């Protein structure tokens, strides 16, 4: 195994990861790590998670051969991993279900979470309701305005939503505020982090729960084609669906891994959210990873048409996979993402979220250069209902 694949003693992947948090949180991180190590070896825990995945979440999700899109492109076969069909409409479910069960097992009486676009907040509210755990969600004031429907959804599901007025009033500030809440209430509170970011052990825990995506792709590919795919493509914001897609294939060197970041309006500072493509190593939200920052280490504001990718950091393991070149990363613009969106709508009757629309665009590009007997799998991490206003706006249509 290459260094970057495994969590070293102190939670590093190569030079990335670690625990850069106030001391008050360190004992809680140790407690979380111990509880998780125990839970993942406990058949009863895994069985309950599996049962929720299957009967509540709708897993396994299909691996679907996109025939018309493939014919339209005229290259490699394009398969879609349909995480958009997961309960809640996104892959977020896989992680929140696992962590909520862990929180209950640890005896925590209160769950907090951050959210950007609101997808992770809605997913956390959902599992809070099904397990009877009270949920409080931090959300930037700017995001609350842009995503008022998701605020309403969270409230319908019984969660309390806290408005964050600090800083840029977006996802990174919501994480800051959730961490401040956790520092204050760490004794009774579980912080349910939504991506493969943050201090160790979160990047590992979230990756493991999301790895169900890649495990299913593996099984379904072997069953359908008798072999593994040639290329896996997934979008990267914090990186949880990408890490979940890639993790079970890290040792299969012949399977190419490609992460797609949000290139926004272009690669000048503040115009995009492509941390791996345009950032440099730093420390944000408790871990060392690629960060979009200025010369002084001040974290930059970001832009993407898809709120779920609009984040200046990225998971430490993805950072390490970039450095050892096991995975590669590209950025595509808002406009290209919209092309991917329309292609899937036109040829497959699927309205993807704008986040995976980035990955769809790149999958089409790559498939065009590949042979007909080769296989590309793109993870469609969520459905597009939440993005209808944005898409309409981009077309100059009023809905």
């Amino acid at each position, binding site marked *: 195994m290459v260094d970057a694949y495994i969590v070293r003693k*102190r939670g590093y992947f190569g030079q990335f990861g*670690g*625990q*850069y*948090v*106030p*001391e*008050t*949180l*360190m*004992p*809680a991180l140790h407690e979380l790590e111990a509880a998780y190590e125990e839970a993942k070896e406990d058949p009863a825990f895994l069985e309950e998670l599996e049962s929720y995945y299957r009967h509540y979440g709708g897993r396994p999700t299909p691996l679907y051969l996109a025939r018309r899109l493939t014919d339209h492109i005229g290259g490699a076969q394009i398969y879609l991993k349909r995480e958009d069909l997961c309960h809640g409409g996104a892959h977020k479910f896989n992680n929140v279900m696992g962590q909520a069960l862990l929180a209950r097992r640890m005896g925590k009486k209160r769950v907090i979470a951050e959210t950007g676009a609101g997808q992770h907040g809605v997913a956390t509210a959902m599992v809070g309701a099904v397990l009877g755990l009270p949920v409080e969600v931090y959300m930037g004031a700017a995001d609350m305005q842009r995503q008022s429907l998701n605020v309403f959804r969270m409230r319908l599901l019984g969660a309390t939503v806290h408005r964050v007025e*600090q*800083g840029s009033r977006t996802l*990174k*500030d919501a994480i*800051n505020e959730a*961490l*401040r809440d956790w*520092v*204050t*209430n*760490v*004794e009774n509170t579980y912080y349910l982090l939504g991506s493969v970011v943050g201090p160790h052990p979160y990047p590992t825990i979230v990756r493991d729960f999301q790895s169900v995506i890649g495990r299913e792709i593996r099984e379904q590919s072997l069953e359908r084609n008798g072999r593994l795919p040639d290329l896996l493509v997934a979008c990267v914001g914090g990186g949880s669906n990408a890490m979940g897609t890639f993790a079970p294939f890290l040792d299969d060197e012949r399977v190419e891994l490609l992460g797609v970041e949000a290139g926004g309006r272009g690669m000048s500072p503040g115009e995009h959210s492509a941390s791996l493509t345009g950032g440099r*190593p*730093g*420390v*944000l*939200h*408790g871990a060392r990873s690629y*960060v979009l*920052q200025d*010369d*002084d*280490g*001040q*974290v930059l504001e970001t832009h993407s048409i898809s709120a779920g990718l609009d984040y200046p950091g990225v998971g430490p393991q993805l950072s390490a996979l970039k450095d050892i070149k096991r995975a590669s990363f590209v950025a595509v613009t808002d406009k290209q993402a919209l092309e991917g969106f329309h292609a899937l709508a036109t040829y497959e009757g699927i309205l993807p979220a704008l986040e995976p629309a980035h990955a769809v665009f790149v999958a089409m590009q790559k498939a065009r250069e590949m042979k007909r007997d080769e296989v590309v799998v793109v993870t469609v991490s969520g459905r597009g209902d939440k993005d209808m206003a944005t898409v309409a706006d981009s077309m100059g249509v009023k809905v």
Partner: protein
Amino acid sequence: MAGDPDLRMTESLATACEAGGADLLELGIPFSDPIADGPEIQEAGQRALRAGTRPRDVIGLAARIRQETEIPLVLMTYMNPVLAMGLPTFAERAASAGVDGVVVPDLSLEASPEIREPLDAHGVDMIQLVAPSTPPTRAAAIADASRGFLYVVARYGTTGARSSLPEDLRGRIAALHRVSSLPLGVGFGVTTGAHVRAVAAAGADGVVVGSSIVRRAAERRDPEDLRKFVAELATGLAVERTTSSISSSKR
């Protein structure tokens, strides 16, 4: 917070703190995402950043203050600005400015060697924090790693003004004295003169007041007012109970 509203005013305010009876000055280098700080210091940092304050300018300010006084100077900032400057460069610049110590609240004990080593090499103290949640054996390890003094976080939560002090503080301070010979500087939520005296009476060697000084300075922008405010905070403290023993011994 250095640079709130500008560095020239910060210099006057720092001088006023010393005149008011402070035995050690902590200068904040603003960071965009200060997860350990409450609203007062967050907002001060945002104002300083909007005013264009850069980490190297704050170190320059420390050097100017050092020209005028022997008071111990401590820089407080987060890991990312330090990494962005480069650890050896940061250590070297801090040392040549006459800075005595550095506090980085998002630096865990586990991650601390990478920054402590270059600071040690330049004779600058890497001051570690110990929290209410820290178990005793870990507290001893943190004390071993800390230089200058041990920064005792008085309460769960972020920095910021509070109405009362936690009840278990005296017991925690006594326990920390048993595992470490370092002076103990106690902060987080220490807001009023009464708090300062209570923390000193609980056995602290030094009392750290941050947010209420930052807020007062931002509201009045008046060095003379701040001098009086600090003097009120320090009223009734015997000299040997204050921070004068901390960190300055090596110069």
